Protein backbone atom coordinates (compact mmCIF):
# COMPACT_ATOMS: atom_id res chain seq x y z
CA UNK A 1 0.00 0.00 0.00
CA UNK A 2 2.69 2.49 1.03
CA UNK A 3 4.91 1.42 -1.80
CA UNK A 4 2.05 1.91 -4.24
CA UNK A 5 1.29 5.29 -2.71
CA UNK A 6 4.89 6.41 -3.11
CA UNK A 7 5.23 5.12 -6.64
CA UNK A 8 2.06 6.90 -7.66
CA UNK A 9 3.60 10.08 -6.33
CA UNK A 10 6.43 9.92 -8.86
CA UNK A 11 6.08 11.48 -12.30
CA UNK A 12 6.72 8.51 -14.61
CA UNK A 13 4.07 6.40 -12.86
CA UNK A 14 1.58 9.17 -12.29
CA UNK A 15 1.60 10.55 -15.83
CA UNK A 16 0.13 7.56 -17.74
CA UNK A 17 -2.08 6.60 -14.79
CA UNK A 18 -3.58 10.12 -14.65
CA UNK A 19 -4.11 10.08 -18.41
CA UNK A 20 -6.18 6.91 -18.28
CA UNK A 21 -8.06 8.04 -15.16
CA UNK A 22 -8.93 11.38 -16.78
CA UNK A 23 -10.83 9.61 -19.54
CA UNK A 24 -12.33 7.12 -17.13
CA UNK A 25 -13.91 10.08 -15.28
CA UNK A 26 -14.76 12.13 -18.36
CA UNK A 27 -16.98 9.58 -20.10
CA UNK A 28 -19.47 8.88 -17.29
CA UNK A 29 -19.16 12.57 -16.35
CA UNK A 30 -20.31 13.74 -19.78
CA UNK A 31 -23.13 11.18 -19.99
CA UNK A 32 -24.41 12.14 -16.53
CA UNK A 33 -24.13 15.83 -17.41
CA UNK A 34 -26.31 15.39 -20.50
CA UNK A 35 -28.91 13.28 -18.70
CA UNK A 36 -28.88 15.64 -15.73
CA UNK A 37 -29.38 18.71 -17.93
CA UNK A 38 -32.31 17.02 -19.65
CA UNK A 39 -33.86 16.31 -16.26
CA UNK A 40 -33.12 19.78 -14.92
CA UNK A 41 -34.50 21.77 -17.83
CA UNK A 42 -37.24 19.50 -19.09
CA UNK A 43 -38.27 16.46 -17.06
CA UNK A 44 -38.41 17.95 -13.55
CA UNK A 45 -41.75 19.55 -12.64
CA UNK A 46 -42.09 23.23 -11.73
CA UNK A 47 -41.82 24.29 -8.09
CA UNK A 48 -44.92 25.25 -6.10
CA UNK A 49 -43.35 28.53 -4.97
CA UNK A 50 -40.80 29.57 -7.56
CA UNK A 51 -42.32 28.11 -10.72
CA UNK A 52 -39.71 27.66 -13.47
CA UNK A 53 -37.33 29.96 -11.62
CA UNK A 54 -36.19 27.27 -9.19
CA UNK A 55 -34.35 25.53 -12.08
CA UNK A 56 -31.45 27.83 -11.18
CA UNK A 57 -30.73 25.36 -8.37
CA UNK A 58 -29.46 22.72 -10.81
CA UNK A 59 -26.36 24.76 -11.65
CA UNK A 60 -26.06 26.74 -8.41
CA UNK A 61 -25.80 23.74 -6.08
CA UNK A 62 -23.19 21.80 -8.14
CA UNK A 63 -21.03 24.93 -8.37
CA UNK A 64 -21.39 25.65 -4.65
CA UNK A 65 -20.71 21.99 -3.77
CA UNK A 66 -17.54 22.00 -5.88
CA UNK A 67 -16.36 25.26 -4.30
CA UNK A 68 -16.39 23.53 -0.90
CA UNK A 69 -15.30 20.07 -2.08
CA UNK A 70 -12.30 21.37 -4.02
CA UNK A 71 -11.07 23.54 -1.15
CA UNK A 72 -11.41 20.63 1.29
CA UNK A 73 -9.45 18.38 -1.08
CA UNK A 74 -6.76 21.07 -1.35
CA UNK A 75 -6.48 21.11 2.44
CA UNK A 76 -6.01 17.31 2.47
CA UNK A 77 -3.38 17.62 -0.27
CA UNK A 78 -1.74 20.37 1.80
CA UNK A 79 -1.32 18.01 4.75
CA UNK A 80 0.24 15.38 2.47
CA UNK A 81 2.47 18.02 0.86
CA UNK A 82 3.64 19.48 4.17
CA UNK A 83 4.30 16.16 5.94
CA UNK A 84 5.61 13.92 3.16
CA UNK A 85 6.70 16.63 0.71
CA UNK A 86 4.98 14.69 -2.03
CA UNK A 87 5.37 16.50 -5.34
CA UNK A 88 2.04 15.32 -6.79
CA UNK A 89 0.20 16.75 -3.77
CA UNK A 90 1.99 20.10 -4.18
CA UNK A 91 1.01 20.22 -7.82
CA UNK A 92 -2.58 19.30 -6.96
CA UNK A 93 -3.08 22.33 -4.71
CA UNK A 94 -2.41 24.86 -7.49
CA UNK A 95 -4.02 22.89 -10.30
CA UNK A 96 -7.20 22.39 -8.27
CA UNK A 97 -7.29 26.04 -7.15
CA UNK A 98 -7.76 27.32 -10.72
CA UNK A 99 -11.01 25.41 -11.50
CA UNK A 100 -11.90 25.84 -7.81
CA UNK A 101 -11.86 29.62 -8.13
CA UNK A 102 -13.91 29.30 -11.32
CA UNK A 103 -16.62 27.20 -9.69
CA UNK A 104 -16.72 29.50 -6.66
CA UNK A 105 -17.23 32.48 -8.95
CA UNK A 106 -19.92 30.49 -10.78
CA UNK A 107 -21.66 29.71 -7.47
CA UNK A 108 -21.66 33.42 -6.58
CA UNK A 109 -22.86 34.57 -10.02
CA UNK A 110 -25.61 31.93 -10.37
CA UNK A 111 -26.65 32.75 -6.80
CA UNK A 112 -26.95 36.44 -7.65
CA UNK A 113 -28.97 35.62 -10.76
CA UNK A 114 -31.26 33.50 -8.60
CA UNK A 115 -31.47 36.05 -5.79
CA UNK A 116 -32.63 38.95 -7.93
CA UNK A 117 -36.00 37.51 -9.02
CA UNK A 118 -36.69 35.48 -5.85
CA UNK A 119 -35.35 37.49 -2.95
CA UNK A 120 -35.58 40.84 -4.70
CA UNK A 121 -31.85 41.61 -4.59
CA UNK A 122 -28.63 40.41 -6.21
CA UNK A 123 -26.61 40.56 -3.05
CA UNK A 124 -26.92 40.81 0.72
CA UNK A 125 -24.13 40.67 3.28
CA UNK A 126 -25.50 37.74 5.23
CA UNK A 127 -23.28 35.04 6.71
CA UNK A 128 -23.65 32.56 3.83
CA UNK A 129 -22.94 34.98 1.00
CA UNK A 130 -20.10 36.70 2.86
CA UNK A 131 -18.33 33.46 3.77
CA UNK A 132 -18.63 32.20 0.18
CA UNK A 133 -17.06 35.44 -1.06
CA UNK A 134 -14.21 34.94 1.42
CA UNK A 135 -13.79 31.44 -0.02
CA UNK A 136 -13.24 33.00 -3.46
CA UNK A 137 -10.60 35.33 -1.97
CA UNK A 138 -8.88 32.32 -0.38
CA UNK A 139 -8.66 30.58 -3.77
CA UNK A 140 -7.30 33.77 -5.35
CA UNK A 141 -4.87 34.11 -2.43
CA UNK A 142 -3.47 30.64 -3.06
CA UNK A 143 -3.04 31.43 -6.76
CA UNK A 144 -1.48 34.84 -6.07
CA UNK A 145 0.95 33.29 -3.61
CA UNK A 146 2.02 30.73 -6.20
CA UNK A 147 2.60 33.49 -8.75
CA UNK A 148 4.47 35.73 -6.31
CA UNK A 149 7.09 33.22 -5.15
CA UNK A 150 9.84 32.44 -7.65
CA UNK A 151 11.03 29.13 -6.18
CA UNK A 152 8.35 26.53 -6.94
CA UNK A 153 9.05 24.24 -3.98
CA UNK A 154 8.89 27.21 -1.61
CA UNK A 155 5.75 28.50 -3.29
CA UNK A 156 4.15 25.09 -2.84
CA UNK A 157 4.83 25.15 0.90
CA UNK A 158 3.33 28.63 1.26
CA UNK A 159 0.27 27.66 -0.77
CA UNK A 160 -0.17 24.49 1.27
CA UNK A 161 -0.06 26.57 4.45
CA UNK A 162 -2.73 28.98 3.18
CA UNK A 163 -4.89 26.11 1.88
CA UNK A 164 -4.71 24.52 5.32
CA UNK A 165 -5.37 27.69 7.34
CA UNK A 166 -8.17 28.76 5.01
CA UNK A 167 -9.93 25.42 5.45
CA UNK A 168 -11.55 26.74 8.65
CA UNK A 169 -13.81 28.73 6.35
CA UNK A 170 -15.29 25.57 4.77
CA UNK A 171 -17.46 24.51 7.74
CA UNK A 172 -18.34 28.18 8.27
CA UNK A 173 -19.77 28.37 4.74
CA UNK A 174 -21.64 25.10 5.13
CA UNK A 175 -23.16 25.70 8.56
CA UNK A 176 -23.65 29.47 8.23
CA UNK A 177 -27.33 28.98 7.42
CA UNK A 178 -27.83 26.99 10.63
CA UNK A 179 -25.56 28.89 13.02
CA UNK A 180 -26.87 32.35 12.16
CA UNK A 181 -30.04 33.64 10.67
CA UNK A 182 -29.50 34.49 7.04
CA UNK A 183 -31.50 35.50 4.01
CA UNK A 184 -30.20 32.35 2.31
CA UNK A 185 -32.43 29.32 2.92
CA UNK A 186 -31.41 26.28 4.93
CA UNK A 187 -29.90 23.08 3.51
CA UNK A 188 -32.04 21.03 1.12
CA UNK A 189 -29.95 18.08 -0.02
CA UNK A 190 -27.59 17.46 2.87
CA UNK A 191 -30.48 16.44 5.13
CA UNK A 192 -29.98 12.83 4.10
CA UNK A 193 -32.77 11.43 6.25
CA UNK A 194 -35.39 13.49 4.49
CA UNK A 195 -34.22 15.73 1.64
CA UNK A 196 -36.73 18.56 1.27
CA UNK A 197 -37.20 17.94 -2.41
CA UNK A 198 -39.36 15.93 -4.75
CA UNK A 199 -37.53 12.90 -6.23
CA UNK A 200 -37.99 14.08 -9.82
CA UNK A 201 -36.11 17.25 -8.85
CA UNK A 202 -33.59 15.61 -6.55
CA UNK A 203 -32.34 13.02 -9.08
CA UNK A 204 -31.18 15.51 -11.76
CA UNK A 205 -29.67 17.67 -9.02
CA UNK A 206 -27.59 14.77 -7.72
CA UNK A 207 -26.72 13.71 -11.29
CA UNK A 208 -25.43 17.16 -12.16
CA UNK A 209 -23.51 17.41 -8.89
CA UNK A 210 -21.84 14.04 -9.49
CA UNK A 211 -21.20 14.85 -13.17
CA UNK A 212 -19.46 18.13 -12.41
CA UNK A 213 -17.39 16.45 -9.68
CA UNK A 214 -16.23 13.77 -12.15
CA UNK A 215 -15.44 16.39 -14.78
CA UNK A 216 -13.53 18.44 -12.22
CA UNK A 217 -11.45 15.28 -11.69
CA UNK A 218 -10.72 15.16 -15.41
CA UNK A 219 -9.77 18.85 -15.48
CA UNK A 220 -7.42 18.65 -12.52
CA UNK A 221 -5.72 15.48 -13.85
CA UNK A 222 -5.16 17.06 -17.27
CA UNK A 223 -3.67 20.13 -15.58
CA UNK A 224 -1.47 18.06 -13.26
CA UNK A 225 -0.08 16.01 -16.15
CA UNK A 226 1.03 19.15 -17.95
CA UNK A 227 2.45 20.73 -14.78
CA UNK A 228 4.50 17.62 -13.99
CA UNK A 229 5.87 17.49 -17.54
CA UNK A 230 7.01 21.10 -17.31
CA UNK A 231 8.54 20.78 -13.85
CA UNK A 232 10.50 17.67 -14.80
CA UNK A 233 11.19 18.69 -18.38
CA UNK A 234 14.90 17.95 -18.06
CA UNK A 235 14.38 14.35 -16.94
CA UNK A 236 14.53 11.37 -19.26
CA UNK A 237 10.95 10.10 -18.82
CA UNK A 238 9.55 13.42 -19.99
CA UNK A 239 11.81 13.34 -23.04
CA UNK A 240 10.60 9.88 -23.97
CA UNK A 241 6.93 10.85 -23.59
CA UNK A 242 7.22 14.10 -25.52
CA UNK A 243 9.22 12.54 -28.34
CA UNK A 244 6.70 9.72 -28.63
CA UNK A 245 3.98 12.35 -28.99
CA UNK A 246 1.81 10.96 -26.19
Amino acid sequence: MWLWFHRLGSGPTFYPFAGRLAWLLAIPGLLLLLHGLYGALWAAPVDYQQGQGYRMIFVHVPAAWLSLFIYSSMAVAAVVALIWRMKVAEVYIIDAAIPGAGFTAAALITGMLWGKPMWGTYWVWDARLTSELILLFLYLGVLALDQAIEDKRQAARACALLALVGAVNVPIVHYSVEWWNTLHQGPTVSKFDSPSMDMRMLVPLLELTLASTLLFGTIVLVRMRATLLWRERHSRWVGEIVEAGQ
Partner: protein
Amino acid sequence: MTEFFAMGGYAVYLWPSYVVFLAVLFGAWGTALWRGRRIRRAILRERRGRNDKR
Protein backbone atom coordinates in the same frame (compact mmCIF):
# COMPACT_ATOMS: atom_id res chain seq x y z
CA MET B 1 -40.88 25.65 -27.72
CA THR B 2 -41.06 29.41 -27.14
CA GLU B 3 -42.61 28.63 -23.81
CA PHE B 4 -39.64 26.45 -22.95
CA PHE B 5 -37.16 29.24 -23.68
CA ALA B 6 -39.27 31.77 -21.79
CA MET B 7 -39.04 29.64 -18.62
CA GLY B 8 -42.07 31.25 -17.07
CA GLY B 9 -40.55 34.72 -17.39
CA TYR B 10 -37.30 33.78 -15.65
CA ALA B 11 -35.36 33.39 -18.91
CA VAL B 12 -33.19 36.48 -18.37
CA TYR B 13 -31.90 35.04 -15.08
CA LEU B 14 -32.07 31.32 -15.80
CA TRP B 15 -30.26 31.00 -19.12
CA PRO B 16 -27.30 33.20 -18.15
CA SER B 17 -26.77 31.11 -15.00
CA TYR B 18 -26.64 27.90 -17.09
CA VAL B 19 -24.27 29.62 -19.53
CA VAL B 20 -21.98 30.75 -16.67
CA PHE B 21 -21.85 27.27 -15.16
CA LEU B 22 -21.21 25.44 -18.44
CA ALA B 23 -18.70 28.08 -19.56
CA VAL B 24 -16.68 27.57 -16.36
CA LEU B 25 -16.85 23.77 -16.70
CA PHE B 26 -15.89 23.52 -20.36
CA GLY B 27 -13.66 26.59 -20.24
CA ALA B 28 -11.57 24.99 -17.48
CA TRP B 29 -11.44 21.73 -19.41
CA GLY B 30 -10.54 23.39 -22.72
CA THR B 31 -7.82 25.59 -21.27
CA ALA B 32 -6.38 22.59 -19.42
CA LEU B 33 -6.09 20.59 -22.66
CA TRP B 34 -4.74 23.57 -24.58
CA ARG B 35 -2.17 24.28 -21.88
CA GLY B 36 -1.02 20.64 -21.99
CA ARG B 37 -0.45 20.86 -25.73
CA ARG B 38 1.40 24.14 -25.40
CA ILE B 39 3.67 22.74 -22.71
CA ARG B 40 4.46 19.58 -24.69
CA ARG B 41 5.35 21.70 -27.72
CA ALA B 42 7.52 24.02 -25.62
CA ILE B 43 9.44 21.06 -24.18
CA LEU B 44 9.89 19.60 -27.63
CA ARG B 45 11.23 22.94 -28.94
CA GLU B 46 13.61 23.19 -26.03
CA ARG B 47 14.92 19.67 -26.68
CA ARG B 48 15.30 20.28 -30.41
CA GLY B 49 17.22 23.48 -29.68
CA ARG B 50 19.65 21.62 -27.48
CA ASN B 51 20.13 18.85 -30.02
CA ASP B 52 20.90 21.37 -32.79
CA LYS B 53 23.63 22.97 -30.75
CA ARG B 54 25.37 19.63 -30.31
